[in-house]
């Protein structure tokens, strides 16, 4: 699906608003949108929300043999995906220019800045190292993907724990989380991308552009920096000329923003750690705001519980004895269960019948195959005598004559039973033969 075009009046309005130092969502020039970081129940899984832009990060690891020229270093792999869910204009399975650009920027920001100690990922030099894979999925697109993705990547990496390994002689032991606590990665610093959008050939500058601002911008400058104010990567796109002062000013702003975001990340990580330690509730479901109309959860309503017990006893005394209740879960089929009374689950029934049908089909097929196998020898000799070449063709209109195995098996030719024919129950072979003839 094509992207919704931007109308002239939107463009004009946006540019005029920027001239007046106003933004659509009421932010100031240097303001970020709200950043929210939530963690999944597993280690290494997080969702970062930057306003309405939303990125899911998931880290996984695997033991692999290292690259030949870097025998003692682990492997880092980054992959960002722009799914159609994020915006209808994204095409699935295609490497668009934007995607390539974002992926390269991410790699430069995270791998080339050496924020992860790759040597600590080595298990046996030259033989086994950890490969750490960071998958990022854009869930919703409202501009500034790169900032959200870089935050999601580094947060997921910080949150991730890999299984512990020990090496004794030639033996490598991999411990499950129950045996030994998984170990975090060693991370030197947290590089974070900060985007600056330029308008009117660099006259106006905005931090964290949203989707509509991105559409009218002339150029984009991305600075990746850590909290020690070390620039990890810098990229300017859009083909505008930037002055030295502008770049310096941007790097100063980036320094402030990165400091803020780093603090937020650390706070979020600490919170999650604390909650996990205390055994509280964590995971995405818990982090959904509950006091909104669109939320799934209901607010708890206070209930007067002063003389509940007496009332309950009264009700029980007055009520009729309960009807028989099935106390065990009724398991119609694996995966469906039902406790208590009520309507019967009809899904299980349907599936059952479908299964039975399938089973019948399966046995039918088996019977046919069995009979054909039995007669294979005869058939070959027959054909040999007829001096006709055996043609294996895929067309469905094959001549297939199947007789009951106890009858004379002279005429059986079965090389051409296609999958469809196998499925169909062949209880009336004579009829079938007629049909085939008619078709021919």
């Amino acid at each position, binding site marked *: *699906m*094509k992207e*919704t*075009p*931007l*109308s*002239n*009046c*939107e463009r*004009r*309005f946006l540019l*005029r*608003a920027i001239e*007046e130092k*106003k933004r*659509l*969502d*009421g932010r100031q020039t240097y303001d970020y949108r709200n950043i929210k970081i939530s963690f999944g129940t597993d280690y290494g899984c997080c969702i970062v929300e930057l306003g309405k832009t939303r990125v899911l990060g998931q880290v996984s690891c695997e033991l692999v043999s290292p690259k030949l020229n870097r025998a003692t270093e682990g492997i880092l792999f980054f992959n960002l995906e722009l799914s159609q869910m994020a915006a209808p204009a994204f095409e699935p399975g295609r490497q668009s220019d934007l995607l390539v650009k974002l992926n390269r920027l991410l790699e430069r920001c995270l791998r080339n800045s050496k924020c992860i100690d790759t040597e600590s990922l080595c298990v046996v030099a030259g033989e086994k190292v950890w490969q750490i894979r960071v998958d990022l999925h854009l869930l919703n697109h409202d501009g500034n993907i790169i900032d959200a993705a870089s935050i999601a990547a580094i947060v997921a990496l910080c949150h991730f724990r890999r299984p512990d390994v020990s090496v004794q002689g030639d033996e490598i032991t991999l411990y499950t989380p129950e045996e030994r606590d998984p170990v975090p990665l060693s991370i030197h610093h947290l590089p974070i991308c900060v985007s600056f959008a330029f308008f009117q050939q660099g006259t106006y500058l905005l931090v964290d552009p949203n989707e509509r601002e991105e559409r009218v911008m002339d150029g984009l400058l991305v600075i990746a920096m850590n909290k020690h104010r070390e620039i990890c990567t810098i990229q300017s796109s859009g083909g505008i000329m930037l002055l030295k002062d502008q770049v310096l000013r941007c790097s100063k702003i980036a320094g402030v923003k990165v400091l803020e975001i780093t603090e937020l990340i650390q706070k979020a990580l600490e919170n999650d750690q604390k909650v996990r330690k205390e055994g509280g509730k964590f995971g995405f479901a818990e982090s959904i705001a509950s006091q*909104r*109309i*669109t939320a799934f959860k209901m607010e708890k309503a206070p209930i007067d519980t002063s003389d509940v017990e007496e009332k309950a006893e009264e009700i029980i005394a007055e009520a009729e004895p309960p009807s028989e209740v099935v106390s065990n879960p009724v398991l119609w089929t694996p995966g469906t269960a039902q406790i208590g009374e009520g309507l019967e689950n*009809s*899904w299980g029934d*349907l*599936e059952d019948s*479908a299964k039975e049908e399938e089973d019948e089909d399966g046995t039918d097929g088996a019977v046919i195959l069995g009979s054909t196998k039995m007669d294979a020898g005869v058939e070959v000799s027959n054909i040999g005598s007829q001096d006709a070449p055996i043609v294996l063709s895929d067309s469905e209109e094959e001549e297939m004559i199947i007789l009951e195995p106890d009858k004379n098996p002279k005429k059986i030719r079965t090389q051409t039973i296609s999958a469809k024919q196998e499925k169909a129950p062949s209880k009336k072979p004579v009829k079938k033969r007629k049909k085939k003839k008619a078709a021919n």
Partner: protein
Amino acid sequence: MAEAVSVVAESLAGDRARAARNVLDQVVLPGEELLLPEQEDAEGPGSAGERPLRLNAGTRSRGRVVCGPGLRRYGDRLLVTKCGRLRHKEPGGGSGGGVYWVDSQQKRYVPVKGDHVIGIVTAKSGDIFKVDVGGSEPASLSYLAFEGATKRNRPNVQASGMGVIGQDGLLFKVTLGLIRKLLAPDCEILQEVGKLYPLEIVFGMNGRIWVKAKTIQQTLILANILEACEHMTADQRKQIFSRLAEC
């Protein structure tokens, strides 16, 4: 498996066909079957075994029933295809019949004949403009469709612009539900907004709103208010409006 599902949906609907009149303004779910008042009288839910709904026979005399969005005629029956609240509108003249539809929450616009929409001209080819209205396909519009346009006097519509609406003002997108809410005849939001600033406003049924006030600041405020109104109760809204009126 598809067959099995449809069987379930059918049996479920058959068990629970509710009278449309009784579920007005209530939530209905896809697959549910509805009974119109006429069928209810003639056969009623009690007379099981009979097909519950006849759109053709005998209804014409009592007024025409129109299925709006979210409802679908399936043979003789009326099925719900979207989840949302069932609405009904009496016809202008006689009693009975009228329009039934389902109000649901969605952002994607599905073009419907007769809707007033705001489109963006994306291309001009010969006598025809290609207009994006938010649907799956672009609409095409003849240049003669514009007011005051003749074969000699062509309208000045530039590609990728909105020559007709005006060069200023802000176009933004909201959910379709909010548009319907705002376009309802007794909509309080619009009256309250109108008291704040003098404004020009255009609503498109495809979820687009164009708004223009005296200054950019005011236009921005209006756009943000309209967007925020969707998930606010009447009291919250009043508070916000009174606060805005002060400053």
